């Protein structure tokens, strides 16, 4: 019943972005996905979240195959994500961004609203309260009424996480959650992610900040040129010769 | 930016205030005439002619009247849009309190504006509306423009008689009320006269290229092309027909819409031989008409068309009625006087209103000869 990525391939007009990628994510853990630029990490997240269909292969989550579902149905199965290039709704406030994320968990029926029934007001208050809770959780409790575009880079990333949390997901896909953050900020996000997992969530994250990845992930998959180099514990990955080469360049052929 | 927005608000407020506050006093020795013409938009070329014709009439009346009843004209533009016509009607009738309204230019607009005047009881004189169903709107609605229903049968009869027409093609604009209803009349009359219709072709308002249709028509070898079009399209049709090699003896027959010097100006040589049934003849020797053509040409530097002539005549008819009613502001009295108009001299000839308040004077059939409209004799 894990999240299993099974022989996924994806090409874009002849360019092979992913080739036979397979690995398992154990539920209730933090799994890292790393690799140099252009390794295919974001493509993989796009496939897992239903934004892109794979060319081959399948994705199984809790016994259901995800790979042929459109994004909104994947989301309905409890899979939420953030984006590497931050896709907030820039003209909306922080609170509204999170409330937009409640799309699946909120009914917001039209009729009681048109008739001004008290139930509508009650639901709105509950939803707003929940949205505020999520903002507090990511440390943006005091920014509720600020427009998203006025936030700093790091704050935007945290807001995206809050919006994803509004879906009450069981699996959270984070694409570079701490990119552009200062050290203290990243540490807060690390604490947040740990607490989420303690609450039973499963997290798959892409990140370039190695200190962060090594510290919080229990298992790491390394991609390079669309292929899996290795999957293993942080220690094993960090010592893996191919991984070092992939990141720092080959020592052979250097001066 | 803030200043600009404040300006917008301020301007809106002021405009509404001014519009409401200015409801000018009515003076008894001045008759207020409201004119609704299409001075911009699709029908602008007709509206501008009408305004010029009407303005000339007003100037002449006021110059001649001396201390008698003067005319205060209020010209409004409906931009060729029916909605704006409605707005302008309300403004003239309820705001300016005009005694009569002359216009609007387009029949379609008239169909939605004239009921407003009818309801309140203000005389409307249409000077260019030719579609059916206008004067039926009510007993305050008049027109001095001969309808196609009068002009066309006469034209076809004369043409059949003199040219021996047997088979023809009907060519008309199908997205315009004037040209479409003209075509309907043509069709009915042709059938009644036993002339065979080989086929029908249509065009849309604003079209400039008629060669595909004319090519089809040419291949059917008709005796004549019966055409319901306004002058813009008519000029193009006439010149392109000749260019495509449709022989001169295949006459082109048109209605009121063709009756404009612009046809000859635009189509030039190709216009020769075109037969035009109309309410007004440019070269009529009626002294009133000769004077009008002279005065108009002098004032505006170009010859008048039927739109200008009918607008000119319209102003005189209304003035006549008001004078005989002896009032400048009694709307009902003016209407009653209008009903009594019988056989007065106008540049259109002896003019009366029919019982249905439509124009009653004899139509003419003209032919373009040597670059001029002249009475069709063959």
């Amino acid at each position: 019943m894990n999240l299993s990525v099974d022989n996924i391939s994806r090409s874009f007009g002849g360019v092979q972005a992913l080739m036979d990628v397979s690995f398992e994510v154990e539920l209730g853990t933090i799994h890292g996905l790393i690799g140099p630029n252009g390794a295919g990490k974001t493509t993989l997240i796009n496939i897992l979240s239903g934004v892109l269909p794979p060319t081959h292969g399948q994705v199984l989550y809790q016994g259901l195959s995800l790979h042929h579902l459109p994004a909104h149905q994947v989301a309905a199965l409890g899979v939420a994500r953030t984006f590497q290039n931050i896709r907030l709704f820039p003209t909306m406030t922080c609170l509204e961004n999170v409330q937009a994320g409640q799309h699946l968990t909120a009914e917001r029926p039209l009729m009681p609203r048109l008739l001004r029934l008290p139930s509508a007001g009650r639901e709105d208050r509950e939803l707003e309260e929940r949205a505020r809770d999520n903002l507090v959780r990511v440390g943006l409790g005091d920014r509720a009424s600020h427009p998203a575009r006025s936030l700093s880079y790091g704050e935007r990333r945290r807001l995206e996480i809050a919006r994803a949390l509004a879906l009450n997901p069981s699996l959270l896909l984070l694409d570079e959650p701490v990119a552009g953050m200062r050290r203290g900020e990243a540490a807060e996000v690390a604490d947040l992610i740990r607490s989420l997992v303690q609450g039973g969530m499963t997290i798959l994250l892409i990140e370039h900040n190695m200190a962060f990845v090594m510290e919080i992930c229990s298992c790491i998959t390394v991609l390079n040129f669309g292929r899996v180099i290795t999957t293993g514990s942080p220690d094993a990955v960090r010592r893996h010769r191919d991984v070092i080469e992939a990141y720092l360049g080959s020592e052979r052929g250097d001066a | 930016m803030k200043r600009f927005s404040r300006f917008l608000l301020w301007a809106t407020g002021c405009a509404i205030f001014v519009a409401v506050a200015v409801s000018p006093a009515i003076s008894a020795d001045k008759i207020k005439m409201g004119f609704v013409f299409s001075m911009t938009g699709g029908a602008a070329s007709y509206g501008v002619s009408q305004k010029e014709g009407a303005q000339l009439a007003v100037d002449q009346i006021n110059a001649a009247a001396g201390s008698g009843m003067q005319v205060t004209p209020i010209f409004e533009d409906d931009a060729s849009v029916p909605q704006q016509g409605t707005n302008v009607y309300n403004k003239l009738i309820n705001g300016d309190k005009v005694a009569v309204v002359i216009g609007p230019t387009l029949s379609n607009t008239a169909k939605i504006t004239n009921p407003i005047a009818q309801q309140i009881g203000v005389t409307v004189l249409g000077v260019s509306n030719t579609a059916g169903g206008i004067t039926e709107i009510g007993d305050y609605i008049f027109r001095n423009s001969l309808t196609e229903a009068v002009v066309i049968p006469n034209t076809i009869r004369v043409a059949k008689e003199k040219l021996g027409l047997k088979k023809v093609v009907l060519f008309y604009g199908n997205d315009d009320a004037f040209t479409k209803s003209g075509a309907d009349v043509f069709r009915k009359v042709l059938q009644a006269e036993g002339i065979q219709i080989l086929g029908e072709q249509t065009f849309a308002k604003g079209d400039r290229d008629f060669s595909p249709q004319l090519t089809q028509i040419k291949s059917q070898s008709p005796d004549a092309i019966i055409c319901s079009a306004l002058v813009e399209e008519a000029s193009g049709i006439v010149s392109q027909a000749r260019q495509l090699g449709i022989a001169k003896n295949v006459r082109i027959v048109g209605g009121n819409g063709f009756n404009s010097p612009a046809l000859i100006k635009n189509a030039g040589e190709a216009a020769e031989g075109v037969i035009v049934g109309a309410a007004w003849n440019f070269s009529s020797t009626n002294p009133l008409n000769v004077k009008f053509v002279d005065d108009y040409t002098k004032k505006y530097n170009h010859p008048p068309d039927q739109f200008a002539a009918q607008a000119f005549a319209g102003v005189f008819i209304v003035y006549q009625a008001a004078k005989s009613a002896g009032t400048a502001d009694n709307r009902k009295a003016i209407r009653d006087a209008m009903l009594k108009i019988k056989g007065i001299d106008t540049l259109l000839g002896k003019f009366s209103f029919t019982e249905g308040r439509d124009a009653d004077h004899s139509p003419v059939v003209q032919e373009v000869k040597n670059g001029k409209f002249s009475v069709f004799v063959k």
Partner: protein
Amino acid sequence: MLEVHDLTVSYGPIEAVREVSFRVEAGAVVSLVGPNGAGKTTALNAVSGVIPARRGRILFEGRDITRMSPHQRVSEGIVQIPEGRLVLAGMTVRENLEMGAYRRPRPEIAASIDRMEARFPILRERSGALAGTLSGGEQQMLAIARGLMAKPRLLLLDEPSLGLAPLIVRLIFEIIRELQAGGQTILLVEQNARQALAVSSHAYVMENGKVVLEGPAESLTSDPAVISSYLGQAISSPT
């Protein structure tokens, strides 16, 4: 040749580069290295003028070019070969090269193209092909050749190895080395730190929009701080 003083660049409220200073001597290859998101490309874009500097000054041969428009900077001899190559996909390879020499006098262009095609034979072979049909490596060659067509006095190279297979990466660095031998001044931004340091004389390590370390390239190669900025602090030397 190039001096950058206290450069700050921001996108909206986000400061991607904060008070960064660096310099490039004539004839030298200098690299900016550091992990993703450190602000390297942003700094480079500020030098080429694609993104305006919010604060700070950029001097080129002693003249202040901070407010100069990008195309004027090209005329001055500052030429950037952008990340992701940005070849003109709908134009032919030859047209791409011609566009490289956009601000040079016309008569010189044909000869320059000949020289470029002699140096990169693949470009001669594919001369009439649309640039979009080239492979990634070929596109990078084209991008470099196109940049060189402008006869740059200062060449700004942005992530030339990005997304390329190891063999091609080696080839690209071969070319950089050749350029260096020919006396070309280069400011190089590269994630592949080892290769970058190997061709550079001096380097700046950036992290979070700031320069955290600078020095002669050789000394940085063995500096554990560089490795840690890439692979995390806990890392020991590879075994």
